[in-house]
């Protein structure tokens, strides 16, 4: 890999580390009951969100899945707003209505947080259609997992985006498991790029454990999308180090397989590469970890201090209030 400047390198490392430490804390908070519902950790996959997000501008749209803490943080949603959302507090980024799986921040064009596998793809196509019809030069980045390729929405959405040459960047985070079912156990064709190409969407596979490789591929793909060449697909080959959710006993993966993937930890590898080039010294790493720990502490404090939405407001925002019309 070609390394970026020290400043850029440290920024990418900080972003990945922030996601990792944030989620480690979230897992702890889950075990003590501060966070409930489903909690899907992204640990191991941080290079995908951080790398891909580098290719986006503030005018672009992001549509993500229920495993989206990484995308949310990389997109710039404040950690406190995400943590408060997981607490179910009114200062959460979805006012406590969504929880871990449904993070939203319209000011950052972050359109969820979709927990129906494949359900975000048609919405992404529509956001891109709206941009195209209004002559806005934005890209819609749509994240989804390998499980989603089994859904009709995958085939339908890729086709429609290609047919109408819409500005969508489809990012398949292939972590090899649809919950507990391995890709090869649910797909006859396991090459996701070939599936995309069959739908008329040019695709590229990339090492999803390498933040710079993901960034480079995402920049290339978004450049094509921005140039009006229609949608592109990026298949980021990655792995989640933790179980599917906090309920998952992880019986379907061999320990050796998990350990093998952990050896290519995106953060550890990137640290080693930066060190080897002399771009990072121990003091930098310590300072970075210290700063991230403080951010996570602050996020937790914000969540702890946040108010609960009054029950009287339960039915608010089922429909848009008259004054918002």
């Amino acid at each position, binding site marked *: 890999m070609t390394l970026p400047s020290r400043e850029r390198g440290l920024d990418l490392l900080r972003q990945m580390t922030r996601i990792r430490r944030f989620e480690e804390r979230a897992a702890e908070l889950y075990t003590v009951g501060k966070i409930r519902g489903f909690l899907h950790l992204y640990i191991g996959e941080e290079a995908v969100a951080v790398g891909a997000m580098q290719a986006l501008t503030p005018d672009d*749209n992001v*549509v993500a899945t229920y495993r989206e803490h990484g995308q949310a943080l990389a997109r710039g949603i404040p950690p406190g707003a995400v943590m408060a959302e997981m607490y179910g507090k009114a200062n*959460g*980024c*979805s*006012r*406590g*209505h*969504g929880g871990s799986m*449904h993070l*939203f*921040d*319209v000011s950052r064009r972050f*359109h*969820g*947080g*979709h927990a*129906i596998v494949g*359900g975000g*793809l*048609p*919405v*992404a*196509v*529509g*956001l*891109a*259609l*709206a*941009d195209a*019809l*209004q002559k806005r030069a934005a890209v*819609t980045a749509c994240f989804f997992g390998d499980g989603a390729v089994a859904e*009709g*929405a995958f085939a*339908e*959405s890729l*086709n*429609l985006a290609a*047919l109408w040459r819409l500005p969508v960047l489809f990012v398949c985070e292939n972590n090899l498991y649809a919950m507990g079912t391995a890709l090869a156990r649910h797909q006859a064709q396991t090459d996701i790029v070939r599936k995309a190409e069959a739908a008329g969407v040019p695709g590229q596979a990339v090492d999803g454990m390498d933040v710079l490789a993901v960034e480079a591929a995402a920049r290339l793909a978004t450049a094509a999308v921005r140039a009006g060449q229609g949608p592109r697909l990026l298949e980021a080959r990655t792995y989640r180090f933790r179980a599917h959710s906090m309920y998952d006993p992880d019986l379907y993966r061999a320990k050796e397989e998990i350990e093998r993937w952990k050896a290519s930890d995106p953060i550890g590898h990137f640290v080693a590469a930066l060190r080897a080039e002399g771009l990072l010294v121990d003091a930098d790493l310590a300072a970075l970890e210290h700063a991230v720990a403080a951010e996570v502490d602050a996020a937790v404090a914000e969540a702890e201090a946040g108010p609960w939405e009054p029950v009287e407001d339960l039915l*608010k*925002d*089922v*429909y*848009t209030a008259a004054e*918002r*019309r």
Partner: protein
Amino acid sequence: MTKMTYRDAARSALRDALRGDPRVFLMGEDVGRYGGAFAVSHGLLAEFGPERVRDTPLSENTFVGAGVGAALGGMRPIVEVMTVNFSLLCLDQIVNNAATLRHMSGGQLSVPLVVRMATGAGRQLAAQHSHSLEGWYAHIPGIKVVAPGTADDARALLLAALREPDPVFVFEHAALYPMEGEVDATGGPGEIGRALVRRAGTDLTLITYGGSLPKTLAAAERLAGEGIEAEVIDLRSLRPLDTATILASIARTHRALVVDEGWRTGSFAAEVSAQIMERAFYDLDGPVQRLCSAEVPMPYARHLEDAALPQPATIAAAARAMLGRDG
């Protein structure tokens, strides 16, 4: 007022919307070159071009979801789903996205999406093109559900739907498309959530909507010839439901028959009946009755289809029975 068909009235609303608001566009299966499966959008492609009148692949879930996304992105999409039976293929986007996104995002998002679809039986299209599932949709908070039963409402309620900031589902009854009626062809939007008394009466209230409205009015005429004056309420909107108009009528007539083309079990008629029981029990002189479709997948043969549906004769018979006039 101009005489025009329900179909032409719906088209006039589409045309006005497309002319009046550059954010409006129409998409769906065969809405463009074909002119719409029920010819509602005939001529619109020529007038507005392929950017705004968009033929889609047979991908209901994705083009409805794309409607959701386009609405989030600042457009005012009108999505046509060919029939209500096909809409089962896009229930995910409707129930899990269109209806939820506003609340689930903590009020950040609005989804100003209009979905139109043909509903109902009466054209011998059998069990995969003829059902009345609008009652299911009325179950879902976060969306609004309207069902025009007159040509004028085919226009007015569609225009109203386009003014809403939230998803509105417009159920156009397939058997009504050729029906002529007086239409205010330059009129503005109707009011969603307001039922109308289509015929005043004193002896009982017939509550209905959509494709059963003309049949119920015919039954009321028949009953009038026998000295029974039935009041006929056209719900027009299933969600929100105008219970005030229903309750006011029952306070006058003391009897209610709900006529609904949906199946009886778990029907929208059951909802109306329950609301009356909860809120007007002491106004009633007898139990609320329901006349619904027979609990059978809609058969093809004309005589069987006729027998499965509420008809003027069966509506009149049910009314007579409630008044002890079943001779």
